């Protein structure tokens, strides 16, 4: 069961994860990561821009790689675009597998790649002004963990 989506509206992760778990009968474990917009000092909103012809195919390509690399029964990968407020969920990745190591590692792998290799551009609003968020060195070291 594979469910890859870009969402333009607020979502409740539990409403996705329940049905996802049900859709993979016989699983041994499900690992889920939900990222929320942090209440960083002075940040009023976060906007994610994407480029449709690359972003969704990029997520599908990442899902292909996760299925190749881990023994998975199902993968859910949902990412928000548009304007988000602090506390809103921005990303939800859930992996179902017979064994917990595959489920946990697949979520870790997808999150590292989504954060740094997916086609999203973010800016945050502070004191009424939008500021673009630059790439971070940390993201490259996260990715390097998987290059063996």
């Amino acid at each position: 069961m594979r469910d890859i989506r870009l969402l333009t509206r607020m979502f409740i992760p539990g409403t996705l994860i329940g049905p996802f778990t049900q859709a993979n009968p016989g699983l041994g474990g499900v690992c889920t990561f939900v990222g929320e917009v942090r209440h960083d000092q002075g940040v009023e909103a976060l906007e994610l821009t994407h480029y449709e012809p690359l972003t969704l195919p990029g997520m599908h390509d990442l899902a292909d790689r996760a299925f190749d690399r881990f023994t998975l029964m199902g993968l859910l990968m949902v990412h928000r675009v548009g304007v988000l407020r602090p506390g809103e969920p921005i990303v939800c990745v859930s992996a179902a597998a017979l064994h917990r190591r595959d489920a946990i590692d697949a979520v870790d792998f997808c999150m590292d790649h989504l954060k740094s290799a997916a086609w999203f551009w973010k800016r945050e609003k502070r004191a009424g002004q939008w500021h673009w968020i630059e790439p971070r060195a940390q993201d490259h070291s996260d990715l390097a963990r998987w290059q063996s």
Partner: protein
Amino acid sequence: MVLLGKLADLGGAPALSLAGPLDWAGLKAALPETLSEAIDDPRVRVAVNGALLADKAALQAGEDDEIALLPPVSGG
């Protein structure tokens, strides 16, 4: 032409229309100077009709092609 991320600010809009056909030199000549300089950054990628170019200097775009200029993606 589609401008993503901070390149949209430099271009003044998220999308521009340019007359084709265009190669890389023609594209740079048709853009505002700050934007034209910004896209020389080796981390800026170019896609034509949703397909990334391996070498953006080899750009060859026709009248109806969609060129996307993609700056590095934001950190987590």
